[in-house]
């Protein structure tokens, strides 16, 4: 079955078309978690679509030539409630632009973005972004950095603190609320960044290479924490990364973007059962997916002369 998938997506890379691989190869046992926890994989397919992107085209003005260049070319993508989807691609391929467009920070020229079937026209509280840089307000203590998004939405400080409390515990920042950001390590700062986004309780969580600025060891640890966290809160997540292992570890689906202008090269399901442990990185199955993704990227880079 796995071979078939690889073959299919390699073909996809060559003919530049989108292929959605089947997810029926691995029957994940039914896992039921308490509260807001995650549901098993197959049922995700029955969930309503949370984030819907249709024929999205994003251009940007090249200041040197004066031409409008295409960064993202006709991307269509549906993400269901509770799904963790990751976009991988070469750096500079337009995946961050894509994420910024969904955040409402970058205008698109064509197509539409819908969250819960509402058209996105700008930034909003239904989405929250975790950027690569922690970008905490240095003059605010950790506690008030976490409530920043809530305060912007008009919530009173006390109410915001109460609402954020749950996430402070979740990212294990309790006891650090009264520290200033400069007193924290890079990994801790990124946790504050994550808590700030989660506190807003967004419909869709957008992660823009969240661990790229961290050292290798911290990155590894943070991946595990995010994995655990996501399985606990069951959020709909769209992440952008260029770490293939990170993508496979965390995601239900990995979308591969071509080199610029970006379009969807392949859409690969990762039916590894949940809850996952970072140990699965050593498994045959895991490495299979890594190879599959890598081959698609490599194939595109060779054809497009992307490197």
């Amino acid at each position, binding site marked *: 079955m796995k071979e078939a998938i690889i073959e299919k997506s390699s073909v996809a890379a060559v003919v530049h078309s989108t292929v959605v691989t089947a997810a029926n190869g691995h029957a994940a046992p039914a896992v039921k978690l308490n509260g807001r926890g995650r549901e098993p994989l197959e049922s995700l397919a029955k969930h309503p679509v949370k984030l819907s992107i249709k024929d999205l085209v994003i251009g940007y003005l090249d200041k040197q030539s004066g031409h409008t260049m295409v960064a993202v070319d006709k991307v269509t993508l549906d993400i269901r409630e509770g799904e963790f989807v990751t976009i991988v691609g070469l750096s500079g391929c337009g995946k961050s632009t894509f994420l910024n467009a969904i955040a409402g920070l970058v205008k698109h020229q064509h197509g539409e973005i819908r969250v819960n079937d509402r058209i996105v026209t700008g930034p909003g509280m239904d989405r929250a972004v975790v950027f690569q840089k922690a970008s905490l307000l240095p003059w605010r203590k950790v506690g008030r950095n976490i409530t920043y998004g809530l305060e912007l939405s008009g919530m009173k400080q006390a109410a915001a603190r109460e609402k954020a409390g749950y996430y402070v515990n979740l990212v294990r920042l309790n006891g650090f609320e009264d520290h*200033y950001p400069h*007193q924290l390590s890079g990994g801790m700062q990124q946790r504050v960044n994550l808590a700030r986004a989660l506190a807003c309780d967004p419909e869709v969580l957008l992660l823009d290479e969240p661990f790229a600025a961290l050292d290798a060891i911290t990155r590894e640890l943070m991946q595990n924490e995010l994995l655990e966290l996501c399985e606990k809160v069951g959020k709909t997540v769209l992440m952008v990364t260029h770490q293939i292992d990170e993508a496979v570890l965390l995601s239900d689906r990995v979308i591969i973007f071509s080199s610029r202008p970006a379009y969807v090269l392949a859409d690969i399901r990762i039916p590894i059962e949940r809850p996952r442990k970072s140990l699965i990185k050593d498994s045959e199955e895991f490495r299979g997916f890594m190879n599959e993704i890598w081959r698609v990227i490599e194939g595109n880079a060779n054809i497009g002369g992307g490197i």
Partner: protein
Amino acid sequence: MRKVTVFPKSNEVKREKIASTLLGSSVILLFLISWELLFQFRLVNPLFISSPSRVVLALITIITDGSLLQNLIISGQEFVFGYGVAILIGFPIGIMLGWFKLIRAAFGPFIAAMQATPRIALMPLFIIWFGLGITSKIVIVLLSAIFPLIVNLQVAMSTIDNDLIHVARAYGASRWQVFRSIALPTSLPFLITGLRLAASRGLLGVIMAEVFGGAAGIGYMIQYAGSTFQTDKVFAGVLVVAFTGITLDFTLDRFGRYFDRWRGEVAVH
């Protein structure tokens, strides 16, 4: 359980601090003693150069006869009004110049030209316009103090971290919210620097304005004492001005540190 090595507390830093304080004050003391000796042995003309002891006596005289307080009140009023209005006008102007590109393009050159003009050279005009009273001095103080404020706040706006604005916008912040939650806190340390510079310039403005065209105030007192060869009183006046300047700067510096405590270098934990 592993035992962690703990060294006894070292006094080295404290000792070094005491040594440098002693060194600094002994140089000042040496200077005062040699000045006094030069005077006592009549090695200098007492008419031109007073002595530390006579300066202290003059200081006591102007304190006890009430003339110092009277002049201080006048100068103080000029300073407070001029400085206050400079803050009230300078703060919004500086912020707007930094925040709005169009306003910067429109008024930037005008303000740069104004800043380059020596204010004290305009004193004759201000006397014609506002008279010899307190108003012409207030205007000088205002014009002396306002530019450091404007320039510092304008610079503050240009140092705003773009990533923070990006984050604020991603969370749906309005332009006003971006301004309040990011631009204003960013500007605070610059405001303090501006206030310190403005205070020293304003103080200079008061004294200069009074020396050049005053009928009262510390500057006038110094000028009058000088023209009547009361050198001890001149020094006493200068001493008062210097002391005021140092106190003001120290206070503003402390004030600034309080607001800067989120920064690593100053924070004490």
